[in-house]
């Protein structure tokens, strides 16, 4: 026996009743209500903490029960089994285990799941989509940051021919064309677009002491193209942002975007290392020492450090004395050992 409130579904009137279960029959009795139904025809809501439970009849009537102990005893006796999730929801041990597994799952998604998913999608992205993304990106950059290149036609022709030599034979994924631009705002740099175009800035050409250094950078960018890094970074960034918004977005969207940037930094660091390894292989195959790329990187770092104020704070000081750039330079120089003897 358990006290309950009965509502007939046609009216909002409340009937104080007592319910009992015997021989597979649910009996509702009191305040003029007299009802008897087979338990199998009644849908019994799962228990959610101490919230009242509902016994719903086919015709829209229902009972609201707050006496959980009495109802559970009756249901157990009648052989009604609790669902698995229902049981887990009321166990502190299950809660602790779930907490642990949630943290582990987030970790695994960040380290393997998202990169793997982005890799699979990026490799199957229709070329038309990546071409359009690249075109609109370059258009936007041309309006804001980039200017036409001031290199003369012969120099461009020379570099384009050298660039063509960098393409590995039989790799159809890499069919890049070279774009020349100038940008005093960005400084010495080159970058790859998702469709495989590589943009080379005059400032980088000026900083290089020989053409092999430029080819080193271009081979590095071709590495990004080969591994679809541009598209993968775009997809991974979107995935991280989406997940962060789902996780803390209702607290604050800003809170979601701050760590997103930091979380993505690791992804781009991994990609740089991968593109360096690709560049080293390309250069070695052409008999160019990979340290040429390291030389240029070194000069870029020095130029940046030279520009720095002395009043720099501890944080950025730590970051620049401890950037992965040094590791990259070191690794490229070590790759020289793999050059075939002359």
């Amino acid at each position, binding site marked *: 026996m358990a006290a309950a409130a009965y509502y007939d579904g046609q009216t*909002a009137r409340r009937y104080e009743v007592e319910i009992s279960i015997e021989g597979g029959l649910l009996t509702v009795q009191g305040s003029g209500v007299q009802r008897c139904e087979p338990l199998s025809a009644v849908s019994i809501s799962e228990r959610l903490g101490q919230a009242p439970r509902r016994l719903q009849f086919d015709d829209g009537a229902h009972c609201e029960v707050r006496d959980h102990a009495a109802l559970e005893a009756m249901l157990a006796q009648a052989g009604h089994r609790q669902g698995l999730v229902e049981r887990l929801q009321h166990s502190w041990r299950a*809660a602790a285990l779930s907490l642990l597994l949630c943290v582990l799952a987030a970790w695994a998604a960040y380290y393997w799941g998202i990169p793997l998913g982005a890799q699979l999608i990026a490799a199957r992205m229709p070329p038309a989509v990546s071409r359009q993304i690249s075109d609109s990106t370059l258009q936007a950059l041309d309006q804001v940051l980039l200017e036409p290149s001031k290199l003369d036609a012969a120099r461009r022709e020379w570099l384009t021919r050298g660039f063509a030599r960098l393409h590995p034979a039989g790799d159809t994924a890499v069919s890049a064309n070279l774009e020349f631009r100038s940008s005093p705002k960005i400084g010495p740099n080159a970058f790859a677009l998702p469709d495989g175009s590589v943009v080379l800035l005059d400032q980088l050409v000026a900083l290089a002491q020989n053409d092999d250094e430029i080819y080193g950078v271009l081979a590095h960018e071709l590495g990004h193209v080969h591994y679809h890094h541009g598209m993968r970074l775009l997809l991974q960034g979107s995935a991280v942002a989406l997940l962060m918004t789902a996780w803390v977005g209702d607290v604050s969207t800003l809170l979601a975007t701050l760590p997103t940037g930091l979380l993505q930094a690791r992804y781009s660091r991994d990609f740089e290392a991968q593109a360096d390894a690709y560049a080293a292989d390309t250069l070695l195959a052409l008999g160019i020492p990979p340290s040429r790329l390291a030389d240029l990187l070194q000069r870029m770092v020095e130029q940046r450090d030279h520009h720095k104020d002395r009043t720099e704070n501890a944080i950025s000081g730590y970051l620049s004395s401890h950037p992965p*750039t040094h590791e990259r330079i070191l690794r490229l120089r070590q790759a020289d050992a793999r050059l075939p003897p002359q």
Partner: protein
Amino acid sequence: MVEFDQTQPLRPEPEVVRFHGSGSEYFQIWIVNLLLSILTLGIYSAWAKVRRLQYFYRCTELAGASFEYHGKPLTILKGRIVGLLLLLLYRFGFKISTAVGVLSLLLLAALLPILLRNSLRFRLYNSSYRGLRFRFTGSAAGAYGVFLGGAVGSVLSLYLLLPLFHKLLKEYQHDNSWYGRTRFNFNASVGQFYSIYGRGVLMFLGLLVLLLLLAGGAAFMFHGLMPPRVAGAKPDLHAMLAMLPFLMFLTFVVYLPVVFFLAAYFGARLQSLIWTHTRLGEHRFEYCLSARRLLWIYVSNFVGVVLSLGFYSPWAMVRLARYRAESMTLIPATPLAGIVADEQEQVGAIGEETASVFDIDISF
């Protein structure tokens, strides 16, 4: 001669809403469902949502009876897939091309009012109290007027007409809501909306000036710490990181206080105004949210969620739900037993009629 019946007082007692949920109880439900949602790549989250709403509805008690949520997980899942597709279209439309971006925006503008109307309909149809369902009967034309017309009109009027459109939106929403056979109605005036918005904007400007002065001082201090525009090997991650302390400072000193203040002030004042001027048939509501209490709950919840990396949120949700629910009082015009009895007669058929009207629940 009228007989005086002492068991049926003419002025019934106001009924205060009670909330019986607890943070630790909800944490157990939440974490198990969160894990299942993660393991199923988000699909189970529709089931998790139904449990969340059922828990919060059932824990809400008015006059000895609790509310109930009847939404079905599969219907919610369907709605979420549509919502996700729209979100992807919106996010990547402009990345693909301007034409696709503009087209997707137009599509969204054309679809959103109907989706929002359907979502209101779904939510109300799936809510019940004492075995009687709520309903929403707003028309599609009305939805285009208040959602699309309101958005465009607010922007075109430089937000000067925003309070008016907000009032029209609430009118559309509440005047078309029913509990059984009884209709809700909304009677706040435009002036009341303008008065709350006006005071809010004035306070916001005052706060902003104060905080910007503070931030300006800080920017001066941080100025020396920023590296010049660097010619880095790769996009200026280091420069960005160097600016991080300043960005964090700006966030915590200017952005967050302003956002919390706006959310608490407008949330408390507007919700109080709206519900205090809503009636269910002859019965009134009184809703007294205090902006200060709400601000305290927002700020402390935020700190809790940040420090716990998100795992405090079940407690945060319960705290907020409790304060919101318990600020609501129903003031019956006739004895509550009487309200209930009056509504008994013709409700049955309506419940059946509406069984097929809802389409999808769009809310994330």
